């Protein structure tokens, strides 16, 4: 593979878990709920995937990952949607909860015995024909199959949000829960479902980290991806296609290290590790004034 191809492949690989999490968060935020607990859903998903895949193989791993993320989102929703508690604090608590819970369970059941569980991993699978396209073929079409799922989910979500009644209801709730309620939509129910979907996708993102990438679980392996995904949603202007593009931009900043390494530049690796966060900050400043968040986002007015 050429240097450029390595860079592109790294970009898609880094973008995959971020895109899953960010797409889920997009739906939640479009319903007016900002879920900082996304980080918790991802780490819970990672742990769930580790256990699930160890017991029943790859697909059971993904299923348990999704359910784990869903469960964390349910706890968040109980406080943030049902009780109308402050979303930021409830979200922070859920992140802490999941990080603590997974670390405790992992140390209790796996780490102490010394022998970590080996789990089946999802290998890359080339799509015949498409993977032969010059430059981008290998990057886009020689990935683990879970990545291909995104190619379907993102356009489908766009279509659902902008071309269906249910999608309109979601966006209406995010703009004005009260108006949506007056129009006969159950705002609380829409917000609940949106948050749960977001948690499920966050869980899948954690599953990708374990099953398609690391091949094992490590404490705190979500490494802030939940928070990055939330920034990506802002950068992508709460639009599925925009969010996918923002995830790619962020991932490209992360994958720059492959380019620089190949060019033989002796730059300390910590600079590359920190770079994506700097890029995110600059990008957020760059889109200032041009973004319009869902009008009711983060407010906890009783609807």
């Amino acid at each position, binding site marked *: 593979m050429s240097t450029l191809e390595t860079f592109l492949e790294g970009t898609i690989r880094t973008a995959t878990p971020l895109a899953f999490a960010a797409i889920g968060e997009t739906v939640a935020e479009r319903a007016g709920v*900002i879920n*900082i607990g996304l980080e918790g859903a991802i780490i819970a998903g990672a742990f769930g995937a580790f256990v699930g895949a160890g017991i029943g193989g790859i697909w059971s791993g993904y299923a348990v990952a999704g359910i784990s993320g869903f469960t964390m989102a349910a*706890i968040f929703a109980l*406080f943030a949607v049902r*009780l*109308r*508690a*402050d979303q*930021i*604090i*409830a979200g*922070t*608590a*859920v992140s*802490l*909860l999941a*990080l*603590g*819970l997974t*670390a*405790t369970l992992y*140390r*209790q059941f796996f780490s*102490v015995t010394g022998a970590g569980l080996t789990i089946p991993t999802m290998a890359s699978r080339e799509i015949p024909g498409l993977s032969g396209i010059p430059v981008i073929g290998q990057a886009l079409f020689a990935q683990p199959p879970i990545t291909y799922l995104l190619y379907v989910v993102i356009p489908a979500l766009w279509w659902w949000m902008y071309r269906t009644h249910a999608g309109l209801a979601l966006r209406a709730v995010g703009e004005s829960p009260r108006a949506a309620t007056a129009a006969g939509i159950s705002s609380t129910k829409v917000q609940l479902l949106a948050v749960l979907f977001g948690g499920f996708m966050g869980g899948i993102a954690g599953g990708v980290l374990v099953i398609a990438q690391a091949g094992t679980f490590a*404490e705190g392996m979500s490494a*802030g991806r939940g*928070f*990055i995904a*939330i*920034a990506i949603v*802002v950068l992508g202007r709460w639009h599925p296609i925009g969010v996918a593009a923002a995830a790619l931009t962020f991932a490209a900043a992360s994958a720059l290290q492959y380019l620089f390494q190949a060019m033989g530049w002796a730059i*300390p690796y*910590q*600079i590359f*590790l*920190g770079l994506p*966060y*700097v890029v*995110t*900050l600059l990008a*957020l*400043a760059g889109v*200032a*004034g041009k973004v*319009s*968040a*869902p*009008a*009711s*986002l*983060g*407010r*906890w*007015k009783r609807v």
Partner: protein
Amino acid sequence: MIEYILLGDALVRATPLILTGLAVALAFRAGVFNIGAEGQLLVGAAASAAVGTRLGAIPSVISIPLLLLAGAVAGGIWAGIAAELRRRFAVLEIISTIMLNFIAIHAVSFLVRGPLQEPTGIYPQTESLSDILQLPIIARGTRLHLGFVIAVVLACVLAWTYRYTTMGFRVRAVGAGRRAAASAGNINVERTSYRVFLLSGALAGLAGSVEVGGVTFALYENISPGYGYTAIAVALIAGLRPLAVIGSGIFFGILETGATALQREFGIPSSTASLIEALLILVVLGVGKTRGAALLPTWRRGFA
């Protein structure tokens, strides 16, 4: 005697928690969501270590305040980046402060392997501070240092400021309702939030200085076991009241030292502590909501 030493350890652990807890409580009180105490603590620690390892033989009465000042200023500047981004570009501080936390982690990792690494170049940490730069021990036989007194005094100062000064009134008014504060109170809301943000960062930065000056005496990676995040629980359990932060800080100090001891004795993972912290935050939220009691100020600011 063992209990005495353990209590000392708990208070040592409580010191950065009280300082970062105050940082979070102050920011939240004014409606500034500073989730970045962790990063501000780290740059504060880095600045203190940088200054401390370069100061010559200056008397402690001058050098120690310099050390602490360096940390507070660095923490304030780190928070200032997020405050500027919010003021100029309306970037949500929740996101920017979290990003800055990660940048700080990697920056420390870079510093202790690069510019600030100890002379032999073997260990990823800075040189140790000389004896005259270390914060004095205040209780014989323990590791309890002057930082604890500083934290308690600052909590009292903050409580006094809230109650008796114009600045304190402004902070409370802005937190209670931004629009009302601006129209009825004739308060410059943006400026108040901005100042609170910097001050909050300075408090968290000071926590880093105190940790370097009183406990670790050097900068290295993982110098903070997540003090900045536990601080959120500390502040919330205290209902954002500065004096109560002392109590909740000590409570969490005992909890975390106890968790470490439990791990040693019985093999119960110390991560259980963060589990308990998270549950406590949720309980406070849940109780506050179901009883209809206003445990927290009512933020009505949107995110648009």
